[in-house]
């Protein structure tokens, strides 16, 4: 862990256990299985449902600044609160929520290594009690869609200039054999395949079986052997941008890559776009 570029963004379960009552810390649970929070969550944690809390209801985009401010204020999160993200499935959606918080410039964001899985495996307490916190007066920055977010026009420019992309989906999605993860409805795109030039490094290769992130050395090898190196401008994508936010987190914070963007339109956009190239 000490070899990570930014070790301060990863906290262990023991640290979380010691800060359950820290007024400067707010635990945020974000899950793929959105009902898991109600089954039981870390005491004091609030739930952020990516479907309802982070997405605009009518336009495929993230919530507006006023809505993000309301979300923070209602969860008792202040501008100087340290937000600890955790969730199921290797912190998959926790990293997605982390990425959205960073769009709005929230400074103190960390991820609990190992997520729900590790907390439960260590027999640490869960509760069904929904906490309430005094409202804060959160002031968000304007959403920054330039630094860590990529749009399709930028992806087109990226391809034209031969810069690297990371496709973090399953090998079968990358090859075009499937349009969604195995076991899911094969829908969402008219074409299967990948963006030309993208390297396939499935997102879950960055974690161990217990849900914790692999060492810096292992992660460095995972990405550099496919030409994904820190001197380059990297764009990561998946199907809707949530798996690729996990990879964005790994590259940006654990390996310290200075220029990584998440293309959240991802394959559900690219695979349906008229006139853009694909590879199989």
């Amino acid at each position: 862990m000490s070899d990570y570029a930014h070790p301060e963004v990863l906290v262990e379960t023991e640290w979380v256990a010691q800060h359950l009552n820290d007024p400067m810390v707010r635990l945020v649970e974000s899950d793929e299985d959105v009902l898991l929070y109600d089954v039981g969550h870390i005491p004091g944690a609030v739930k952020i449902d990516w479907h309802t809390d982070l997405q605009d209801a009518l336009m495929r985009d993230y919530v507006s600044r006023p809505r993000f401010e309301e979300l923070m204020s209602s969860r008792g999160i202040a501008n100087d609160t340290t937000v600890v993200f955790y969730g199921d499935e290797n912190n998959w959606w926790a990293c997605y929520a982390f990425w959205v918080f960073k769009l709005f410039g929230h400074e103190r964001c960390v991820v609990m290594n190992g997520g729900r899985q590790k907390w439960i495996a260590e027999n640490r307490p869960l509760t069904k009690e929904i906490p309430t916190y005094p409202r804060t007066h959160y002031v968000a920055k304007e959403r920054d869609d330039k630094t860590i977010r990529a749009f399709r026009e930028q992806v087109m420019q990226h391809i034209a200039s031969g810069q690297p992309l990371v496709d973090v989906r399953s090998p079968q999605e990358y090859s075009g054999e499937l349009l969604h993860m195995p076991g899911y409805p094969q829908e969402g795109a008219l074409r299967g395949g990948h963006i030309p030039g993208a390297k396939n490094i499935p997102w879950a290769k960055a974690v161990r079986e217990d849900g914790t992130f692999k060492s810096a050395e292992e992660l460095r090898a995972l990405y550099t052997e496919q030409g994904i190196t820190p001197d380059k401008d990297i764009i990561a994508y998946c199907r809707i941008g949530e798996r690729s936010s996990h990879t964005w987190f790994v590259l940006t914070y654990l390996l310290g890559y200075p220029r990584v963007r998440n293309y959240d339109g991802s394959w559900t956009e690219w695979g349906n776009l008229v006139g853009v190239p694909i590879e199989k």
Partner: protein
Amino acid sequence: MDQQEHIALILDHYQHPRNYGTLTDPDILVNGGNPGCGDVVTMYLRLDAEQRVVDIRFEGHGCTVSMAGASIITELVKGMTLAEIEALPYQVLIDQMGEGVFKSRLRCATLGIDTLKGAAREYPTRQSLGQKLIQPIVLAHTGWV
């Protein structure tokens, strides 16, 4: 039921699944889902001479909605014939789980019922050949890709 009641019911079935387990010498043993990742169920059924379900069990691994859906459907189909199961509308699940959850997690919600419908379609042919419908039990692997 309002949405909160639907969610409470789903969570109750997830945490206290009905008919969870196996049957010895079932007439039907079928798998549903994808063992490579995600949600899987195995359904065990015992039938009478009229292909009516006299006993049912399920095992599985997966999300709250898929496991709750399997639990709910095993309660609903007891006493039904296979023909009735094959014709069963999804509305019976929507009434229990709520339209919002059902539609947002369609694959998960219908895992149990679709596994049973598939068995209901296939069993008559097997029976005409003097066979039961028994598939090898497939264990779930929870690695995400």
